[in-house]
Every structure is written in C-alpha cells, then in structure tokens.
C-alpha cells in the first residue's frame, strides 16, 4: 500500500500534489459548514453524515438538506438531488479510461466529483490522469467526511444558528459554487428565469417544490447554433 502511494506521488509531481491538497482542505472546510448548517436547520446528526458517506456529492447534499430543512418533502429533495447529479453521466463517459477496469469501477465511480474529474482531464498522459483522479478522489472523500462529521457535532452544540448568521452562509456557499457556470449567457438566462419562477411560486406551493418548478426556466435555454448557413443565402 505504501509503495502504491509513493508511485502515485511520483506520478503527480509536487505542484499538482500541492494543488490537490489545497482543494481537499477547502472541501473539508465546506463540509464543516455543511454539517453545521444541516444540524442548525433542525436535522439530526445522522442525516448530513450518512448523506456524505453514501451520496458524496456536495451540491446535491446541500440541495437535499435545504429542501428538507425548509419543510419540503424528502421525495422532492431526492428528485432535485438526482437531477443535479445527472452531470455525473457525462463525467463518467469522460473518465472511464482513467478509472480503470474490473473492480476499480466500483470505488472509482463512487469517488467521482467535479474536482477530481477536472484534475484528471487537466493532465496529458494516462499515468498522471490516473494518479490525479485517485489521489484527489480519496483525499476529498476523507476531508469532506471528516469535515461534515465535525461540523454536525459542532452544529448540535450551537442552539440558535441564526445568531451566528449560518442561515446566510448556506446560500452564500451555493452561490459561490454556481457563479462560474453563470458566465455562460444561455445558462444565465435559464437560471434567472428559473429563479423568478421559484420566487413567484414560493407563497403558493409547499416547501421544496418551488425549486423543482425552476426547471421551467430551461424553456429559455438556447444552445448556440452556428449561423453560417443562414448567411449564405
């Protein structure tokens, strides 16, 4: 096991290893706030902790906890979480060679996150891709779960989380996550339309449903088409 670790480290090289370590650490801190916020929102400690171990997908965990803590139905929360995680199908197709065959597919798939997929795709040769994918995946899994567990214990000590502003930290974390995607104009238009629909629906619908209704915003999503053909005639 130690020699495997050393080979991986040699394959990675120092700068990449440092970048990966920083990402893992940052995820641990986000996990800490996720755990504290979930418990502060009224959920029992096991909910955020179990989600982190068996689902292990930050954005969908935030979405799930946000909907349930707001009084929404767990069914709506599950549907929303699965929709957010549908991007993993595309990730899996992109990194199937990197993960490797046989039994490695099982743990390798569970460790799939935005971060380690991005690190793997950023390398040139397969050895480095593999090393980056596995080291980053395992590192994030360990840091994220430790962070969530610590945060959930911490959150259960704090009784009134609003005093510490934790209710504002939750949407701020999500906002920081989606901001880069909003640079794309088509996505931004769809997201803004979805936000308007969700806010308008909030006074009328049970908690959790307004977020799902936001998908109506996709009506305004236009994939850019090449315009040359129209110019010719």
């Amino acid at each position, binding site marked *: 096991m130690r020699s495997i670790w050393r080979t991986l480290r040699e394959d990675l090289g120092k700068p990449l290893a440092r970048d990966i370590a920083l990402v893992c650490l*940052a995820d641990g*801190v*986000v996990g800490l706030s996720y755990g504290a916020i979930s418990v502060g929102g009224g*959920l029992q400690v096991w*909910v955020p902790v*179990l*989600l982190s171990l*068996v689902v292990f*997908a930050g954005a969908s965990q*935030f*979405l799930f906890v*946000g*909907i*349930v803590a707001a009084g929404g*139905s*767990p*069914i709506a929360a*599950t549907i929303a*979480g699965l*929709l957010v*995680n*549908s*991007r*993993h*199908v*595309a*990730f*899996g*197709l992109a990194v*199937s060679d990197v993960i490797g065959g046989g039994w490695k597919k099982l743990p390798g*798939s*569970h460790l799939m996150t935005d971060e380690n997929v991005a690190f793997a795709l950023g390398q040139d040769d397969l050895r480095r891709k593999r090393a980056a994918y596995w080291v980053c995946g395992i590192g994030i899994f360990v840091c994220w779960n430790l962070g969530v567990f610590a945060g959930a214990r911490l959150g259960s000590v704090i009784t009134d989380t609003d*005093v510490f*502003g934790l209710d*504002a*930290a*939750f*949407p*701020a*974390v*999500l*906002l*920081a996550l*989606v*901001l880069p995607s*909003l640079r794309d104009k088509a*996505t931004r238009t*769809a*997201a803004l339309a*979805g936000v308007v*629909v969700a*806010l308008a629906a*909030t*006074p009328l619908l049970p908690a959790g449903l307004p*977020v*799902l209704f*936001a*998908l109506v915003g*996709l009506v305004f999503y236009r*994939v850019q088409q090449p315009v040359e053909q129209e110019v010719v005639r």
Partner: protein
Amino acid sequence: MTNPGLLLVAVLILAVGTFSLRIAGPLLRTRFELPERAEKVMSAAAVVLLAALVATAALTAGHGAAGIARPAGVLVGGVLAWRNVPFVLVIVAAAATAAGLRLIGVP
C-alpha cells in the same frame, strides 16, 4: 419534523441513484458519447436548480420574505466569491454580515 424512516429511504434512494449515474459512464465503456446538446441541457438544469435554491434560501422563509440580514449576508458573500476571494472567507463574511446586522437589531 420529517418522519425519520421516510428520510432514511430518501437518502438511500438518492445514494443508489447517484451511484448509478456515476457508474453508467464506466459501464458503457465503448466510445459512446452523449449528444452534445443533451449534455449541455443537463448541466444547465443543475445550475438552474442550484440558482433557484440560492434565491429561495436567501430571500424566503416559509411562504414569506426572509428579512434583511440574511439576504445582505448572502450578497456580501456573493460579491466576494465573484472577486475570487477564497471560499473560507466567503462563508465567514456572509455569516458575519448577517450576525452583525442582527446584533444591531436589523431583522
């Protein structure tokens, strides 16, 4: 609060579903590629859902409005994130703004 049994089932369904989505790619190992358009719509759908959650979590509480302190904190965090300030500071600044405003009596 929500029924714990139902909550547990929901968590497990989300777990099994997420794992299925993740392993679909490696199982369909052949050089099959998702149509580009479908891929784009899927990632846009994820952003739409998350943006809607940001808006509702920041601006609403129950069926009404959330007051001033919370949206103000989220706004401060959002501006810092936009300026590429490290994640940790975004979280701390958002929470501190909301907590500070409440301390001086802003709802």
